[in-house]
């Protein structure tokens, strides 16, 4: 119940924040929400399933383009566009994921990266349909969402709903099966789970939510470009999740807050943003391998001086089994 108080407090702050800040920061808040959802969807693969996707922007970008194209070329209402983005991104994840889940570890990462770049080049080259590197302009949200604050609250509702859905999934038997696959793939196979099938389903769900995040981006930014699919973009949820903490449900969102605020702040006075984030990531990886929330959890645990727990980042023991003798 203590946790609920925290959430309620955060929620109140989130509700009144745009009323007391300027428009620039409202834009930053929207960006935090969208990228936070993007990172949370990424973490379904990274934190829960234990595989590093380095091409998650593909589904984000496909989602963004689905909504962008439908709005610009078809004047389709935004809610339908969001739904369409989820479906298209999910289908895309189903097709590409079918191949990705055959691999694990570095090979999984490389294949997701390769597919991500493939999607990028398709969008980049297909001038007649996607506008190529000119991108798509004039993605204007409906009149009621034109103001910064209105779009913020709209995004807040969608993102919170999506996060609740991801939370429910993470606590469901399916979510625990993902943890089981992460912890010990072999054992999970021997309790009767078809590993690839489950990994694929999770990959598709993660793609669907990435697509939703992407869909929210176009009307916010009024335009989209193929860079949304590049591996740079795929790196963003990786950074956010590592900073926030991959073993905590709120890690990606906390990472998004830190990353996006810092970027807005730092780019205000220097062009050395990549250097800054590079240093931050290095420090996080070296000095707090569980991310910000991992560190907090550890401190709280020490504070309460409970029984020693396993370090969350510690790699699994008992993973190897007896196939000798």
């Amino acid at each position, binding site marked *: 119940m203590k946790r609920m108080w925290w959430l309620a407090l955060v929620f109140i702050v989130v509700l009144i924040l745009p009323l007391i800040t300027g428009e620039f920061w409202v834009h930053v808040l929207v960006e935090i929400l969208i990228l936070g959802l993007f990172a949370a969807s990424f973490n379904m693969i990274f934190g829960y399933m234990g595989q590093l996707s380095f091409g998650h922007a593909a589904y984000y970008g496909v989602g963004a383009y689905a909504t962008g194209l439908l709005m610009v070329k078809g004047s389709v209402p935004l809610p339908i566009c969001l739904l369409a983005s989820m479906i298209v991104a999910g289908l895309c994840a189903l097709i590409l994921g079918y191949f990705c889940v055959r691999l694990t570890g570095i090979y999984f990462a490389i294949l997701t990266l390769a597919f991500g770049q493939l999607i990028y080049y398709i969008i980049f080259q297909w001038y007649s349909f996607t506008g190529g590197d000119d991108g798509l302009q004039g993605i204007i949200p409906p009149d009621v969402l034109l103001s910064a604050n209105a779009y913020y609250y709209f995004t807040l509702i969608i993102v919170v709903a999506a996060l609740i859905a991801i939370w429910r*999934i993470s606590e*469901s*038997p399916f979510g625990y099966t993902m943890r089981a696959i992460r912890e*010990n793939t072999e054992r999970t*196979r021997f309790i009767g789970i078809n590993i690839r099938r489950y990994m694929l389903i999770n990959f598709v769900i993660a793609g669907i939510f990435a697509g939703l995040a992407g869909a929210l981006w176009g009307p916010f930014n009024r335009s989209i470009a193929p860079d949304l699919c590049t591996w740079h973009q795929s790196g963003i949820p990786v950074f956010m999740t590592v900073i926030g903490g991959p073993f905590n449900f709120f890690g990606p969102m906390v990472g998004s807050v830190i990353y996006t605020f810092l970027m807005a702040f730092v780019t205000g006075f220097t062009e050395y943003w990549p250097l800054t984030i590079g240093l931050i990531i290095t420090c996080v990886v070296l000095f707090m391998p569980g991310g910000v929330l991992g560190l907090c959890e550890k401190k709280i645990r020490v504070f309460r001086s409970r029984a020693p*727990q396993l370090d969350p980042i510690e790699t699994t023991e008992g993973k190897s089994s*007896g196939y*000798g*003798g």
Partner: protein
Amino acid sequence: MEDESILSVKDLCKAFGGVQANSYVNYEMISGELSAIIGPNGAGKSTFFNLLTGYHLVDSGKVYFKGRDITNWAPHRITRLGISRAFQVSNIYPRLTTYENVRQAILAQQRRTLNLFVPANQLARQDTFELLEVAGLSQHADMLAGNLSQGDKKRLELAIALGSRPELLFLDEPTAGMSGEETHDTMELVARLNQEMGLTILFTEHDMSVVFGYARRLTVLHLGSVIAEGTPEDVRTNDEVQRVYLGEEA
């Protein structure tokens, strides 16, 4: 029903590189048996289990479960059919609690793992607690499995295998690394599972004394081949077994 064949293995072969790990192994089990496979380290006991459960692909030969050819099936299909195994080195989920470890196996057995919407902590509570009780792990339910003692990890390994509600259970050295008392308790539990729940159990062991007290039928593997089979008494007095096995122990 008692005499129904549950497992039938024909001419099973497996080589790793040049080493013949299993060579024309034939094996039969009838429902309700509690039997053991013994042999020194490297005899091919674990390989035998790995071939039966789909961990390794067989080179040649056949495996039948209740008359059904399951040779080279994927492990998850074999498990769903009613065969489960406990590994030699405990093979658990170290960063989940003991309770969650067992629940995971039960949820999988109940085909509930595709459920995306109901919180897992509302499901299979009764079954999980019962199984923890059977395995003697109730007092450690909330402990992270990685923090359990070696003996408790082995017990958890057994509980996970039981969570699949198998008809046929393979235990690969279930008492490896246990103290004398733990070994006794574990083997008593195995015997109880066999007698009270009617589980057909096949276990491997390299410690002869453990085997003689419990298994009703012994099979001796040596360098990948079956060299003797029979009651513990028969095997104990078998000359070849004495030579390759007991002789080495002395």
